């Protein structure tokens, strides 16, 4: 019997990987909830407003994009536009070549994961080093991040210690403190040797052109203190209308993502460094990346573009906790990924049309999302799209015959009584795969079709 790929992946997942993902997600979720509900009288109100602000941005990108471009230029930033992943990577390479640069230090940016920038640059003879501790470990391990905020949630310290040893970063030692110190000592010299610092952006204010970057480790600050050229790769949906809105969004992002009141480093960048400041980029580029976003915008799932990549929906998701991020075969796993990843595939949508099915539609993601994205509705829309495009879906029972039955009361009643046969036949023999899949894990209750209808007609009157 064939099941869905993600289910298969989950079944084969190593027990300690599942435990690591489960524990990490659960802890993150519980801390977040406690913080929000302890501190605010009505945290839901904040989520709803933030959602409205971002939906407004998404539906008015035609106004905001030119506005933000003009502000950035006025701030002395060179603005590039990249329709595709390839164009974005080429733009970075072009900037590096023009400067005679060969070494890049990279802060964590999901959009550069989308474009596989580091690979691309390495293929073209450039060094592109990840500096976020988790991303650095993923890079030296030739692995992939499995969470958008906690990239190595799937790894334990022993695996990390082993790969540090393999990569010449000291003899095996799995103490997290030692691991972190070794990375610190190795990376600080790399920053200072680098020519270019690459970051993403958490928000861009259309009003001021200010780019806001948050990190806990301070790696993006290091990129912007040590190098002379800053390149920011930014998805076109990252805009907030005003600086004023940052007072709301920064509060929500830190609490939702990492259960903090505020992320340790929150940097507001409105151009190259000030002339009197000795450290930092003299040149600054912003590359606005589309890479499928305009198709999402054109779809009925455009609400997903509100996402501020906090990861709260991953942490709370029971399917993510069981399956881990790699099960989603995408840069964006979990509930947000189940919507976004198939859409970003554009015409190759069918390849990831199974992702939206990996959900019990429990709605926990919607309940925690700081921008209140109705993720279950979007998953449903994509399931409908998959059906309309005739994408095969292993294990899903066909609904046509059922619909016929359920719209014909006489036939329905007949089958209610007829279903009794199930009580006498071992269901293993029945030619209904869904039934067998059910019974593999659970007992089926006795069939009592028609009993209620009979009772209703003959019931004893109370008065």
């Amino acid at each position: 019997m064939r099941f869905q790929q993600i289910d298969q992946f989950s079944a084969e997942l190593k027990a300690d990987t599942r435990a690591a993902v489960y524990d990490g997600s659960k802890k993150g979720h519980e801390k977040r909830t406690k913080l929000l509900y302890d501190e605010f009288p009505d945290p839901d109100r904040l989520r709803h407003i933030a959602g409205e602000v971002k939906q407004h941005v998404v539906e008015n990108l035609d106004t905001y994009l030119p506005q933000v471009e003009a502000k950035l230029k006025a701030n002395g930033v060179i603005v590039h536009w990249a329709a595709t992943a390839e164009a974005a990577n080429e733009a970075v390479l072009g900037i590096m070549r023009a400067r005679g640069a060969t070494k890049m230090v990279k802060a964590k940016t999901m959009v550069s994961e989308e474009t596989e920038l580091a690979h691309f640059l390495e293929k073209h003879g450039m060094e592109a080093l990840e500096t976020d501790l988790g991303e650095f470990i993923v890079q030296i391990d030739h692995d992939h991040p499995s969470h958008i905020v906690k990239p190595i949630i799937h790894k334990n310290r022993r695996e990390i210690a082993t790969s540090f040893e393999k990569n010449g970063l000291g003899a095996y030692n799995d103490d997290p403190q030692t691991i972190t110190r070794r990375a610190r000592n190795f990376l600080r010299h790399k920053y200072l040797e680098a020519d270019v610092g690459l970051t993403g952006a958490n928000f861009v204010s259309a009003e001021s052109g200010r780019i806001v970057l948050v990190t806990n480790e301070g790696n993006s600050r290091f990129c912007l203190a040590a190098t002379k050229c800053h390149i920011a790769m930014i998805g076109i949906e990252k805009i907030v209308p005003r600086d004023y809105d940052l007072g709301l969004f920064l509060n929500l992002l830190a609490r939702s993502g990492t259960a903090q009141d505020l992320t340790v480093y929150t940097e507001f960048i409105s151009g190259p460094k000030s002339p009197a400041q000795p450290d930092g980029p003299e040149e600054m580029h912003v590359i606005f990346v589309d890479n499928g976003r305009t198709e999402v915008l054109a779809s009925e799932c455009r609400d997903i573009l509100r996402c501020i990549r906090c990861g709260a929906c991953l942490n709370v998701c029971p399917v993510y906790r069981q399956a881990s991020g790699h099960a989603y075969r995408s840069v964006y796993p979990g509930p947000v990924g189940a919507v976004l990843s198939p859409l970003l595939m554009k015409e190759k949508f069918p390849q990831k049309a199974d992702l939206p099915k990996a959900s019990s539609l429990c709605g926990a993601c919607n309940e925690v999302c700081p921008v209140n994205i109705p993720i279950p509705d979007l998953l449903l829309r994509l399931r409908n799209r998959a059906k309309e495009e005739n994408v095969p879906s292993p294990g899903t029972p066909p609904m046509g015959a059922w619909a016929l039955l359920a719209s014909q009361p006489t036939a329905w009643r007949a089958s209610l009584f007829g279903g009794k046969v199930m009580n006498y036949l071992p269901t293993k023999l029945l030619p209904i795969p869904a039934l067998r899949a059910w019974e593999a894990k659970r007992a089926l209750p006795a069939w009592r079709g028609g009993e209620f209808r009979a009772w209703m007609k003959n019931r004893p009157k109370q008065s």
Partner: protein
Amino acid sequence: MDEKPAQAILTMPSSADREAIFSRVRGALAPLHERAPMPDYTTELAVLRQMMGNRDAFTIFSERLVRVNGIALTEIAALVARLREGKWLQGYCDPVLWPMLAPHFGADFTVETTYDRKRVDDYAFGITRAAGAIAETGTIILSDATTSRRLGALTPWVHVAVVERAKIYSDLPQAVAALGSDSNVIWVTGPSKTADVEGILIEGVHGPGVQIALVV
């Protein structure tokens, strides 16, 4: 890819992609009968008013800084004692601050007022001026205008930010309103940290492992 001459890239970045994106955005939005309006709201909703009560900004700031494992001090002597206790005897100091601080530092300290990036590992501490602070979150505000060296405030194990008591903003929205025209403002809330390895909190990843605010 084709080799593009440097100048071409700097002056005319990808105008075809720009047009393509803009026209796709317009096309995607054209069928919408109405656009979602901007909500009218106040960021006051996100302020931790209850936690702050009527207390003064400095009290809240020190309390919140401790919550994120930072240290708030008000006496230069206390700072010197801390540094000595941690055996952090060599460091960098903003030349503007040094005349005020120097008399309190003993001969056991080596303090430089120029920062040499080739000797990044030599500085155990860095002392720089802050542009202000945020009480609500225990945050120190650094800006290009007030911070003598971005690296000086970042690479040493200990960072000491000298904060003027009058420049402590009460909350995030106030601090956002005060961002001003500096091309780089950074809010620092406690020591640099990570929980990437098994969710265990480790401080001092790339930036300081010890964050001190000296409020004057």
